[in-house]
Each structure stands twice: as C-alpha cells, then as structure tokens.
C-alpha cells in the first residue's frame, strides 16, 4: 500500500528532531525524580558539550568512532543488510591497526595510512565472512554477525593476553610507534585528525551509494532483490561487497580508537561502539549526513554527562536512558507522524 503522506525532505529531518525533544522531555521526569531542575541539568549538559571550542572538540572526539560505526551500519542497511557485527569488525580492525602500529618502523606518511588501511582490510574481511555466509548459504546476517562478534572478541582477547601481550599486569599490547598515531588537533582535548577521516568516509559513502554504478546495484538489492536479479544484478556478489565496505568502515572505528585514543590495544576497550552505531544509523536515517549529525549528538551527550554528574545530583546514567529513549522514539516513527499530522490539522 502507498504511504499515507509522502515524506517531504524537511520531515526527514523533523522526525529525528522530534524524537530527540521527546526523549529529553521524558528524561526530565527522571531528573525531577532525583530532585533536580531539568533546565539546570540540561543547561550544564549543553554548555559542557557545545558551550566552548574546547567542549565542542571533546564532543567531536567522542563522536568520531560513532561516525564510523554509524556509517558502517547505515551502508549495510542501504543494501538491505542488518549489520549487527560492527562491534566485532571494529575489534578485528583495531587489532590489525595495532599490529601494523607496533610491528613496523616507517615514516609517518606511510605508517599511519598503512595502519588505517590494515584496519579497513581486517574489518572488511571479517564482515565478508558474514556476507558470504548470507549470500551462499542463506544464513541470516543478524545471526551470523552476532556469532562473529563473539569470535572476534575472544580472538582478540586471546591475541592480546597471549602472543601480543605487552608484558605489564594489564591485558594490553605495547604502545604503537608514534609514527602510526593520529595527530591531535585541539590540545588539550584528544580530538585527532581521525575526525577528518570520518568526514572523508561519509563523503565516500555518499558518492558510492548515489553516484556510482556499484551504489545503484547495492541499493537496488536492498530495495528489491528480485527486481535486482531480474535487472542482471548479481545479488550474492553485491551482498558480499556491501558487507565488506560496511566492515571496512567499522574497521576504521577500530583504527581511530587505537591510533587516535588508546595508542595500544586494551582488551575489550570498545564500550559498545559497534552497537551504538546501530542507534546512530537509525537516528541518522541511514544517510551519511544524518549519521554525522546523529553521532555528534550522541558524542555531545557523552561529553556533557560527566560534568552533569559532577555538578548536579543527576547520575550520568541518565544519558544512557536518554539515548535509549531517542532510539525508542525514532523507532516509533509512526507515532510521531501521527502526532504531527494531528497538529497540522488543528
């Protein structure tokens, strides 16, 4: 059946915005419950995340890995694939990055790109396994990416506590050589040039999806695989390619974490960045620009949460609740559409 109201472009932006506002509204109930003033709490959240150049830099730094994982999930989604495996791809990518980072001594101009590239290849190959299982054996990608997540996790656990253990009492590798590290661009924050890479990645995603023949095929497979097949498009091949590109993007998140933030591989360093990517993609409507914006929002929430925790009675867990609420309201798009229409009619 046809859509009741054909979504206008501005509505595309409006819906996520409304979801965010609703989430903040519901969140304020919790703030009231702990006896604080929501305006005050949100005020702090806002100034601490966007109130100064320095805070903005922190926000961007928090947002950078989410940009990558969000792009990863969005890209696969455009090809009709639900990549739950960004987390695992991120770990594999991160490990490849750290391996290149510690094993070679090269000039920076080669070393850093090589480490980034290794992370992309690692993530891509790992995700291709899922793509291949889906394309050739029909194993649903949700199932097989989840299983690959566990494998990636335990594999890197073992690598980092075993053959690549750094020797200290912490389960981590040695530090990468500085020639493989991203450069910090706004001291004292930890924002690095990785954020530029994220911008480039978003542009690349846009170009691949909408300006190339490959993107035409990928999206056709995502929208109607039967018609794609009829149109001479190789569905299996495009499934593998979509997963590979998605995995490369998730691998970049791993590279950012290693080469930009931790400078070594700490066991289980990712605080669910891969899974947050799903939320970011959802909020960003699977569009690269939307993903960047959504990642910045989530980054801002995280950046501001510590200060809010410090100077009010509101615990930082509120941010997790708000993030969950945003996802809830985005998923309940139907509800919001209805509310909006009621308003229009009135």
């Amino acid at each position, binding site marked *: *059946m046809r859509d009741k109201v054909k979504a206008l472009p501005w509505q595309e932006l409006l819906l996520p915005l409304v979801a965010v506002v609703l989430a903040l509204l519901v969140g304020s109930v919790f703030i009231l419950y702990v006896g604080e003033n929501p305006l005050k709490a949100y005020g702090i959240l806002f100034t601490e995340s966007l109130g100064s150049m320095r805070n903005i830099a922190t926000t961007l730094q928090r947002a950078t890995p989410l940009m990558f994982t969000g792009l990863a999930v969005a890209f696969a989604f455009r090809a009709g694939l639900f990549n739950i495996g960004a987390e695992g791809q991120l770990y594999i990518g991160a490990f490849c990055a750290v391996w290149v980072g510690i094993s070679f001594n090269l000039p920076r101009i080669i070393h850093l790109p090589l480490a980034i590239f290794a992370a992309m290849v690692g993530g891509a190959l790992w995700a291709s396994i899922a793509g291949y299982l889906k394309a050739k054996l029909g194993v649903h990608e949700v199932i097989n990416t989840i299983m690959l997540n566990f494998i990636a996790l335990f594999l890197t656990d073992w690598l980092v506590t075993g053959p690549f253990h750094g020797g200290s009492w912490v389960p981590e590798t040695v530090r990468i050589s500085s020639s493989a590290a991203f450069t910090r661009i706004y001291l004292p924050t930890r924002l690095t040039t990785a954020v530029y890479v994220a911008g480039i990645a978003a542009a690349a995603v846009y170009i691949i999806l909408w300006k*190339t023949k490959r993107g035409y095929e990928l999206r056709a497979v995502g929208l109607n695989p039967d018609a794609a097949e009829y149109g001479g498009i190789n569905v299996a091949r495009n499934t593998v390619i979509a997963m590979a590109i998605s995995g490369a993007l998730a691998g970049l998140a791993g590279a950012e974490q290693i080469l930009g933030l931790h400078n070594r591989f700490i066991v289980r360093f990712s605080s669910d960045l891969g899974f947050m990517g799903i939320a970011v993609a959802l909020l960003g409507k699977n569009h690269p620009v939307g993903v960047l914006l959504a990642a910045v929002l989530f980054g801002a929430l995280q950046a501001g949460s510590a200060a809010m925790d410090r100077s009010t009675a509101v615990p930082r867990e509120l941010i997790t609740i708000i993030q969950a609420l945003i996802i809830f309201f985005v998923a309940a798009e139907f509800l919001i559409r209805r509310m909006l229409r009621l308003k229009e009619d009135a």
Partner: protein
Amino acid sequence: MAKVLEMRGITKQFPRVLANDHVYFDLEHGEIHALVGENGSGKSTLMSILYGLYQKDAGEIIVRGQHVEITEPRRAIDLRIGMVFQHFMLVEPLTVAENIVLGSEIRKGPFLDYKKMIAEVRRLSEEYGLQIDPEAKIADLSVGLQQRVEILKALYRGAEILILDEPTAVLTPQEVDDLIQVLRNLKAKGTSIVFITHKIKEVLAVSDRVSVLRRGRKIGTKLTSDTNEQELAEMMVGRVVLLQVEKGSAQPGPEVLRLEGVSVKDQFGQVKVNNVNLSVRSGEVLGIAGVEGNGQSELVEAIAGLRRVSGGKIYLSGQDITGWSPLRIRRAGFGFVPEDRHRRGLVLDYSVADNLILGIHGSKPFVTSAGLRNQGKIGEYAEELIAEYDVRPPVANQAVRNLSGGNQQKVVVAREFAQNPDLLICSQPTRGVDVGAIEFIHKQVIAQRDRGAAVLLVSAELDEVLSLSDRVAVMYNGEIVSVMPIEEATEHKLGFLMLGGRLEDYQAGEVSGSAGQS
C-alpha cells in the same frame, strides 16, 4: 432507491498532480457502480479518500444522509465501508477464520473463542455464497479464494458499502466469472458495491451504472444498459479507440529461440515444466495460452536465467544460453516484461529514470569508465522514453511507487522494448492497464515483431493471445500440449485444450489432425 453514499466536489492535490478535481460520485442502495478510467485518472485516489487512507483537500462526503469526515480507515469501518485492495493484506500462515477476525477477535474470558469464530465465519460465507472453508490456511488458497477472504473480512466488519479496487486484474477468467457471481449475491443481500476495473466487458456484465474519470475529472455517469463498449472506451480515453489490433501478416525469419526438452523444478523439487520443445522465429509472435499456474511463469523465468533448468537446452540466436547469468542473457539480445511488475519488474522506490535503466545501468553512456553514473545521460534517456511511451505524469525523478499501476507498466514496457531485443518475452503485458494503453502496448508489440524481433507472449487473456499471436501454443500441467497457427485457433478450442482436453478429442467439426506438435 436511496443513496447510501454521496461524494461532492472531491479534490485532491498531490505534489505534482491534481488527482481528483471536484469529483462527484454517488452510490445507491444495493447497486453495483463501476468506476472506470485511464491509468492515473484518480480512481484509487477517490476510493482511498472514501476509505480514509488519503485526506481530501476539498469536498464533502455524505454517508446515509450524514455529513462525515473520514480521517482514517477505522472511521470508514465504523461507517460500514469496506475496501478490498489489489494487493491482499492477509497473514499467510494463519487460517481463514483467524485472518478474518484479526483485530476484532471473539473472546471467551482471556482466551480466543475459536469455535465461535469459525462458526461465525462459516455462517457469513454461506449467507453470501462465498464457499470458503474457515479452517483452511491462507497459503494454501488460490488467488481467487484469497480475494474472497478479503471480501469476507470486510463483510465481517459489517461492510454495507464495499469498494473493490481492480479485483479482477489478478484473476483467471474462470475466477472472474466466480467473482461476478459473488458480487451478484452480495448485491441481492443489499450490499452496495464500487467496482474499479479496466475491462469494459466486466463493466457491462456486472454493473448497474458506470462512472468515468479522466485526468482527475468526472466525465460522466451512465446507466450500464444505455451504453456500450465503444462509447465507454471513448469516454475513458477522450478519442476513438481501436479495440482490435491492426496487424499485417507475419514475415517470419530465422529461428531466434529454441527450447529442447526443457524441464524446470520448483524449490520443492516439483516438476513445473516438463520436457518443453518450442521454437520462435524472428518476425513472429508466439502466444502461450494456458490457465495461470501451468508452468508458464517458470518456463519464462528459466529462459531469462532467473531459474535453473533441471534438464534440456535453451538456444538464443543459435547460442546455447543454458545456465547463463541474467545479465549475460540480456546482453545477448533479450528483453523481458515480467508478469509481476512489483516483485520483479520495478524497484518501486527508485525514480522513473533509474527504473528505465535497470539492466543497462552498467553500460555506456550511463556509466563513465570510472564507474560513476552519468546523471545527465540517464536523465536525457529517461525524458526520451517518457515522451515516447507517454508515461504520466512525465517526471523522470519521481518515485515509480507514486505512479498509477498502468503507468508503472508503461515504464517496464518502455525499458524492455527500447532495447530492440532479438527475443522479447512479454508476460501479461497489459495487466491492470487501461484501454488506451492496451492499444498502445499492442501496437508496440506488433511493431517489435515487424522490426524482426521474436516475440513470446504469455497471457491469461485469451483475447490478447488471439489478437496478437501468429502461432499459439497451449500449455497445460507443465507441458506444451499443442502448437497451432493462429488461423486454426479459436477461443473455444484453446479453452478446451487449456483445461487438459486432448486435441484428438476435440470435436468441433474443424481440422484437428494437422495441428500437432510442430
């Protein structure tokens, strides 16, 4: 008779088209009112407004004397209005009864009262002569029966006004006759029916009155007994329409398609096509007549490379193409109008332009050597085809989903025909298409033939097969049971063979010996 429904001055503006322009429509108690008009003339829109799916921009709706605002389907159901869509909305694994009561289940305490639900559905089915087993699974029912379940669903919710949007487009001729009988029963029980169709014969067979829309305007309402086929066709299209195809005799050239002992199995290993031998020559139309589901779809998909053959060989212009990929077959000079445009033929969320290049999207000039899409060339090409095939509205970057059914079909036809393929397969090429467009598509098929294409036509419409083909093959139960020149084919004879009759037994006083397997 009392009016149960009146729609006055209904106007609906979509971003690019005025779909309804001050339309007046009324329905009397217990009448069958046919609603006809070209593709995109606004029939579905008008009825979607009545059912609360779209909101009108202006106008008023009066149901049983009361002014009403129908903001959503719930409201329509409360007003005892029911609608049956062309694409069914049934839950396949559930039974008939479960589907029918879905959303208004009968309970006994916290549990569902299955016995009562089944009894209630059975009672309704018998009352209206629908002959539906409430305990059958939807997935096991034919399309025709599934449609009856939809009708029953509406009746169960108390519908006294029933809207049927192109109910016959998906039915076989036999099922159409059955449906017409059902509609007569409903009418006798006092249900008022709006019946949307493109087939004038059906209008004349079943309706009391008929209203014609053209480009969003109401052209007129006639008593069915006061009008005729030609007049209705002209009212719809606004000019004289040729209801007969004009074509010269065929000039067959060399053989283009050759099937040698082709067999196809479905995913469960059932033989769907059994040892088919067939040959189509350049410059001729070979029509395949047959009741749907006798292996035509599987045969055609096998030729297109979309299904694996389990035995036999397929030759295209002398080349063995068995097992080739769909793309390779296309590039060897193959065009294909699939039977289900929504499932196979179109990416509904792609623009008209992007759909027009599906299959050639990877060829010059639509991609540059760097693999980038050449938007300019794609746009130009789309504009050309839109103009040539009269796709309305003529907007290349509009999503195909927003086109009316007939215009979607024109997009598929334009894409496949424009390639000038050596072999052209047309499966149900005019399904859901208006008379004007049927005339146009038929002309194009003949033009392709005269250009030298080998055309394989599969159609559930015997009229279509008879008027376009130069030779006719009859398919029954996965086999080609007979191939005959068009001169030897009559509706009666084909009908006999389609239902499994044997040529030897066909006693109509005509030649019967000469038309064997060729």
